[in-house]
């Protein structure tokens, strides 16, 4: 509990700093937003009204605290382009991206961890070498390129899956999986390689421990030794490092959603960027950071849960 309290104590200042950074982004913006919003006529009266409405006539610290107060109440502002509340837009798009990310993470775990275990158990064999080569290639390959190539082969040539679009899970789960399985696989590909590398080194050091020798000496089956004894201990660093990489997964959705035309968070931010819809861009940055921090906190608690040595602290 003490540990959780300390962690929460660290999270609050980080989130506040993120909010300052996100707010500061708008200072980089070229031109005066009030003039942009006033339309082509640039009527000075309208511009003044907009400035007053958006608090742009106030000193910057006052603007920040006003904005922060709104954010804390769940008000992320209004989209300049659509006129809708940004929080509502994000609420609509976020589940899509979360589904994609969760599926991507599952793919990464299902591929990365077993591959890493095989590589460590069969150290210095052809298996190890092959896993390492594939892993290095997986880290280096741009996932949006793999996405394009897979659409070409799996969707266009073979016609197995739809190449674009999205069906919500609640509407038709089969179609939902059909529209997301390929993008999720592409998304998880880089993370799978990273997890594979982490699993390999964690397994190698776990397999070197005395308790493994004891387990083997007791006559336990090799499978039991590897899964119940070595992997269980190796999982601790893997979970933590995996959580740290979740940010990369969230980043990846931007490009993947663009390629597969999935109407998620990433597509929202890219469209907002081209529409110069800055409140949406700011909100997306803020929400992703908050999400990332929250996921890290969860990983931290998981870390304590699977590592009994930390429970008393």
């Amino acid at each position, binding site marked *: 509990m003490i540990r959780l309290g300390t962690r929460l104590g660290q999270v609050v200042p980080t989130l506040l*700093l993120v909010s300052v950074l996100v707010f500061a982004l708008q200072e980089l913006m070229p031109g005066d937003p009030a003039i942009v919003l006033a339309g082509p006529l640039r009527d000075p009266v309208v511009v003044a009204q907009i400035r007053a409405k958006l608090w742009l006539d106030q000193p910057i610290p006052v603007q920040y605290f006003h904005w922060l107060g709104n954010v804390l109440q769940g008000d992320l502002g209004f989209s300049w382009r659509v006129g809708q509340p940004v929080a509502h837009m994000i609420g609509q798009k976020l589940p899509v991206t979360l589904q994609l990310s969760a599926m991507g993470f599952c793919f990464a775990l299902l591929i990365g961890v077993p591959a890493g275990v095989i590589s460590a158990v069969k150290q210095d064999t052809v298996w190890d070498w092959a896993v390492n080569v594939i892993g290095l290639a997986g880290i280096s390959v741009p996932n949006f390129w793999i996405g394009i190539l897979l659409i070409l082969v799996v969707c266009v040539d073979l016609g197995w899956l739809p190449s674009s679009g999205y069906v919500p899970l609640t509407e038709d789960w089969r179609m939902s999986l059909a529209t997301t399985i390929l993008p999720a696989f592409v998304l998880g590909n880089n993370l799978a390689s990273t997890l594979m590398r982490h699993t390999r080194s964690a397994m190698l050091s776990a397999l070197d421990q005395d308790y493994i020798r004891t387990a083997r000496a007791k006559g336990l089956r090799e499978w039991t030794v590897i899964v119940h004894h070595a992997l269980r201990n190796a999982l601790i660093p893997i979970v933590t490092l995996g959580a740290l990489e979740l940010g990369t997964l969230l980043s990846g959705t931007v490009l993947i959603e663009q390629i597969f035309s999935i109407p998620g968070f990433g597509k929202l931010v890219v469209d907002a960027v081209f529409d110069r819809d800055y409140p949406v861009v700011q909100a997306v940055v803020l929400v992703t950071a908050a999400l990332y921090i929250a996921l890290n906190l969860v990983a931290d608690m998981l870390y304590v849960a699977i590592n009994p040595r930390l429970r008393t602290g």
Partner: protein
Amino acid sequence: MPSEHESPGRLALRRFTRRPAAVVGMVVVVLFVAMAVAAPLLAPFDPNATSWSAIRKAPSALHWMGTDENGRDVLSRVLYGARASMLAGVLSALIAAAIGVPLGLIGGLAGGWTDTVIGRVTDAVLSVPFLILAIALAAFLGPSLQNAMIAIGVAAAPAFVRVARGAAIDIATQDYVEAARAVGNPPWRVAVRHVLPNIVPPVLVQATLAIAIAIVAEAGLSFLGLGQQPPAASWGSMLNSAQRFMTQAPWLALFPGLAVFLAVLAFNLMGDGLRDALDPRSR
């Protein structure tokens, strides 16, 4: 057998050259840099010259990588695209190092509140996923290759802060740094003359890996239209237009993507080799 008086530089070079993968990586990196520098000499055609009689032609003896939707030679554009990628990779990593190394050095050596503040800001920036931060910065700065490089550099800086800070704390406890302090050197002099040269190895490793990340990021930003602007060639923007003609002209997607992949792979191989050569403990 290594000689007893072998300099650290020679020792590192020997360790590096003993890894074939790292050497291959370096050779490929040198080839890509040469490609970028000598693009005007190597390219068989003007990369921006359109030809209505050669639209979307498959690879042939005349056009080794085929032609694109405007009849431009893909090979020439891949060669010129190396310029945008290498420039973005190296300059972004330099920007990141220029921001991150001084901050890490100050944080690591000053300690106390200064270190806490720098650490907290680093954590805050790191909590925004890299590409999303780069996209947001590029969006607010405006789309261009130059702004993409600034955005990637800023987004990649926190990693340098961490590496430089860790190394600086490690070096600061060494006897020669203590001695430099004891004889009355001002803190900035200790930092610049005694600590900085010794944190170069981990920073160099980080820089090599950051170049790989920056190349992918530049390709991603250009793919989205936030990097290199048309008609100038960039691997990312080539992939963007390739997507529209995927069924009719699949080669358009193949070659620029392959170029990104090979360049990033080469920098990663070189970075791994450098890490093992310069900092064997971190393996």
